[in-house]
């Protein structure tokens, strides 16, 4: 990408190179070829295909029909587009910060020299390795309005529990609380980040009379900021694409309260067989996610601290 590279690229790559260098080029390419093939087969070609689909009306039975911007026009008039985007944004922007805060809090606790840290870590991590289908079943039973564990427990306390997932106003908040259960991976990444903070920094700050809170604010948080950034970016990309739980548990209901964007795309593609429209919807989500990722990289420059020694690593 540098200047020299740009100049060099105009010449054939073997110009002025020994056969050993040429071999190194070929070798590097060959070892990376599985990925290069993969990117072509599963990204480049599908992306191209998908762009073409946006302009097509295709139900898989009749041959595809060119409709120009018809799918885009349809999208503007479709009330479920806005609704599903609202639901997805609501879920993402509330759940991701909350999940990261809890994951960080747990990681901070587990970073203390406590007994049984590995046991705690296992317990907090296990839910994240519970298959989404299994956890959907588990939560459906816990949240069942009549026979569920939660409402049975509330009943013992003399409280009549609400209908949770079956209540349009509660369904999204319940999803947010439910997914607290799977913050294990973020916690483990935070924990690894905390363990990479050099002890000398804390000691130096302590000698200067910094309180625990000051040390957290001025040492831990800046040192951890790249990890927070990583978790935030990946977390938002993942949350925007929430699907399985909504597909299995609520099927988008009640009253479309959990009709998330990917669920709506899935329906259009595999239930209504509107391949072109589904592709158009997917592109909309694609650009929205990309815009937020880009925005975060922009904003990240102001708060993410990269230690120069680490950068070269």
């Amino acid at each position, binding site marked *: *990408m540098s200047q020299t590279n740009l100049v060099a690229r105009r010449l054939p790559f073997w110009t002025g190179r020994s056969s050993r260098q040429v071999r*190194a080029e070929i070798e*590097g390419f060959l070892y990376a070829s599985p990925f290069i093939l993969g990117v072509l087969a599963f990204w480049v070609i599908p992306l191209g295909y998908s762009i073409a689909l946006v302009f097509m009306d295709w139900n898989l039975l009749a041959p595809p029909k060119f409709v120009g911007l018809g799918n885009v026009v349809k999208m503007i008039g479709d009330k479920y587009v806005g609704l599903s985007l609202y639901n997805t944004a609501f879920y993402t922007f509330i759940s991701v910060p909350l999940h990261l805060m809890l994951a960080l809090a747990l990681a901070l606790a587990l970073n203390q020299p406590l007994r049984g840290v590995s046991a705690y870590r296992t*317990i907090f991590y296990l839910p994240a390795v519970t298959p989404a289908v299994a956890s959907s079943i588990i939560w459906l039973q816990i949240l069942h309005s009549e026979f569920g564990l939660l409402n049975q427990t509330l009943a013992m306390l003399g409280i009549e529990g609400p209908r949770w997932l079956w209540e349009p106003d509660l369904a999204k908040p319940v999803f947010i609380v439910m997914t607290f259960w799977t913050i294990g991976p973020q916690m483990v990444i935070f924990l690894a980040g905390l363990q990479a903070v050099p002890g000398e920094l804390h000691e130096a700050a302590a000698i200067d009379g910094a309180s625990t809170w000051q040390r957290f604010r001025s040492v831990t948080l800046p040192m951890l900021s790249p990890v927070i950034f*990583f978790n935030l970016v990946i977390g938002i990309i993942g949350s925007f694409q929430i699907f399985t739980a909504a597909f299995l548990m609520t099927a988008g209901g009640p009253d479309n309260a959990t009709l998330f964007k990917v669920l709506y795309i899935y329906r259009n593609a595999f239930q209504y067989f509107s391949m072109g429209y589904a592709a158009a919807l997917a592109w909309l989500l694609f650009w929205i996610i990309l815009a937020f990722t880009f925005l975060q990289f922009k904003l990240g420059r102001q708060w993410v601290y990269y230690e120069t020694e680490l950068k070269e690593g």
Partner: protein
Amino acid sequence: MAQPTAGHSVAAARPALATRWHRTTAGRTLLSHGILHLVLIAAGITFAIPILWVLSTSLKRADQVFTHPIQWIPNPVHLSNYVDIFQVLKIGQQSAIPLFFQNSMVISVTGTLGTVLSSALVGFSLSRLRWRARDFVFAVALATMMLPGIVTLVPRFLLFRDIGWLDTYLPLIVPDWLGGGGFFIFLMRQFLRSLPYELDEAARIDGAGSFRIFWQVLMPLSQPVIATVAIFAFLGNYMDFMGPLIYLSSSEKFTLALGLRWFAPSAAGGAFGYPNEWGWVMAVTALMVAPVIVVFFVAQRQFVRGIQLTGLAGR
């Protein structure tokens, strides 16, 4: 298990007890650790309840499922659910659960093998070999991590349809053999960069080619990251729902994750209209989660170490 520091602080607190022990440094540590333990235990119980509830319900007979107060430890314990589920769900003459399990294993094991091998090869090329397009290829790998995969969902399905791969395991396995995705390549590359480059140079002087350096020098040293990639890849395949949902249509090819859906009706009703079957549902769920828990327990040390060593932490 025993953490030296925790034991130390207890011992150090003792002489101070006569005065105001909680004002001393050691006393304060003891107090704060006590509070931390309480918080962590409370959080731990909250996190564990759903799994314990599954286990408990799976050991109950229908009349024990809805009792006041709730029976956490079934009395008596019934194992019949675990027997029944093998007879209830059938595909033709075959019991469905062993079949689904076998399918899941075929996909997960083949896929994991492919992911580990191909991501290691690519990671090797992106960290240890010097070639021109290397940084560009790495940037592409990072980009595929950041790009929302949803946009390829429909065209991938159509492409696999065009080449006749629908209702086979190929759409689920072949991508794993082609690098397995940006994240795994990233992990491998980061880890391999942390190994001393003198190893390669010494081996080259001894006349070893790139493949020998990769296979005999670097791979044996890469155990932690291999474990991390293998676990993530295995779990990813085993837990995957959307892939099998879209690509598999004949029920004898279903994976456990997809087959379990027969027991997981939507909120609208389904099996939950018949609460006497809750024990079955929970028994199937427990059977599905069990292998995952075993894998995690066996390899968790390696797994966590692998994450730490990839430098994911320091970036």
